[in-house]
């Protein structure tokens, strides 16, 4: 009867280390008790509070890392968590990136986090890839040093790091410079829509990581199902390729909240 992947059942792990990028942006390291691919996510539980989805931002040296930004009650409470405190870390869930050919890695804002793990993986596999990252301001570009090491290109609204402007222009230029087979993208949905359009124009594939409201993470509750195809983002995503994105009519459009109502 064991239908359950042991790593999907609830279990808590002590935080081993907290890396503070800013008061509102931190990485949390846990003992690695499961394998995870770049783009997969975990459900992070603060006992007594809530449980929310977070991408795996790195797996290295027997440790698994997630990186979070304070945006609301849960993530703000997370910023207060200290080493030794036990959090629920279930996963990995979903399907991550499926690297192939010459890649262009494009990240915006918090979307940068899971791309760090992708880049480490691409490096390890000696894949051909370039990286373009954008953020409003320099502090949001966490792990910039790490990314700079692989020659990442940066864009910030204020030009404090890299060029001034949005990451999309950067990405377009990089595509014009050298051929690209696939764009890996993670970030705000409008950016992802623009990347899809770019890929369309260039007739190349893209693999974009989507976010939808998630409750169960295991393809049961239905809250993350997109309209149209009913694709379950927590199970078949969060990373979708171009063919799959074509079956997501609400891509870039209003989608659903905790009650299942569409919100705008």
């Amino acid at each position, binding site marked *: 009867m064991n*239908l*359950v992947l042991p790593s999907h059942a609830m279990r808590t792990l002590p935080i081993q280390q907290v890396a503070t990028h800013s008061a509102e942006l931190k990485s949390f390291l846990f003992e690695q008790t499961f394998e995870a691919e770049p783009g997969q996510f975990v459900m992070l539980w603060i006992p007594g509070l809530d449980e929310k989805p977070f991408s795996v931002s790195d797996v290295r040296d027997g440790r698994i890392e997630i990186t979070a930004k304070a945006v609301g009650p849960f993530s703000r409470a997370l910023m207060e968590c200290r080493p030794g405190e036990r959090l629920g870390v279930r996963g990995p869930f979903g399907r991550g990136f499926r690297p192939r050919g010459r890649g262009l890695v494009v990240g915006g804002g918090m979307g940068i986090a899971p791309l760090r793990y992708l880049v480490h993986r691409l490096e390890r596999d000696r894949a051909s890839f370039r990286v373009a990252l954008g953020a409003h301001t320099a502090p949001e570009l966490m792990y910039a040093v790490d990314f700079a090491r692989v020659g990442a290109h940066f864009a910030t609204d204020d030009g404090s790091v890299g060029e001034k402007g949005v990451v999309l222009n950067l990405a377009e230029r990089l595509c014009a410079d050298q051929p690209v087979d696939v764009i890996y993208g993670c970030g705000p949905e409008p950016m992802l829509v623009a990347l899809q359009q770019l890929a369309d124009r260039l007739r190349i594939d893209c693999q974009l990581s989507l976010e939808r409201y998630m409750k169960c993470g295991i393809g049961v509750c239905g809250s993350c199902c997109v309209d149209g195809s009913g694709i379950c983002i927590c199970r078949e995503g969060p990373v979708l390729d171009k063919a799959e994105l074509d079956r997501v009519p609400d891509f870039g459009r209003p989608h659903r909240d905790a*009650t299942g109502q569409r919100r705008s």
Partner: protein
Amino acid sequence: MNPLAVQIAGLALESPLVLASGVLGTTASSLRRVAQAGAGAVTTKSCSLAARPGHPAPCVLPWPGGLINAVGLSNPGVEAELEELAEYRRTCATPLFVSIFAGSADEFGRLARRVAAAKPDLIEVNVSCPNVESEFGAPFAADPEACGRVTHAVKENAGAVPVSIKLSAQCASLARMAVVCRQNGADALTAINTVGPGMWIDVGTGRPALSNRVGGVSGPAILPIAVRAVYEIRKAVDLPIIGTGGVSCAEDALQLIMAGADAVGVGSGVYAGGVELFGEINRGLAAFLKERGFASLAQVKGLAHREGRP
């Protein structure tokens, strides 16, 4: 002829498999997807008059025996639900069951009237959700009187739409409950809802892992309870039964059918099996019928009630 075709409350289903309420049942597109995967009918997540956000996460957890959940009946409210129903109708012909729940017989009646106007194929009345006790008191499904009143109120308002009452295994006598439902006009019975409630404690922190502390137990762990429940109900009444609980393969479905079920609900099985499970079970059922020389599921139904040596 399709050997898997079954009739239930006047409805013809192409497969006995019915998507159970609460699993992938929130939107027209997810329901349609399950229908396309091979379900004979699909049931919406239970809806109430007003929208409900439900409990915070963790609210659905896998454990080695299946799932434990306290979603807290989150739903966008009946009006939004009916929009989904309309969209589903436009794009999918597979019968649609709408599940409803409310806090009183009167409210159940009003909700049923509103839902019936949208003409679903069946209204399933969730009188047995164990996760909202604190709000609504003990589930109606533990009390034959209360359950009878709800059945009556829904039937009065449902017009021509057939009504199935969804029972819980947790009551003093399922036989009595079934008889009361029939006397009050139920067209079918669904059995069972989740079992328990249960609790799963994270030993790392000593905390109940569900935000609601307790939740309904479902999946493989409850199959024997569901089989017994269906058997008991079948002994007591001749209403169609949607046997539900713990099904994750064709043999499990056959156990429920042999116990007396006309159709078979599948919910938690989707966790391990994905929506592909519906197709797999259909194929397994067809293979069983063929191998054992049965022409249809009707010949298998209720076999467990025969007396003496086979």
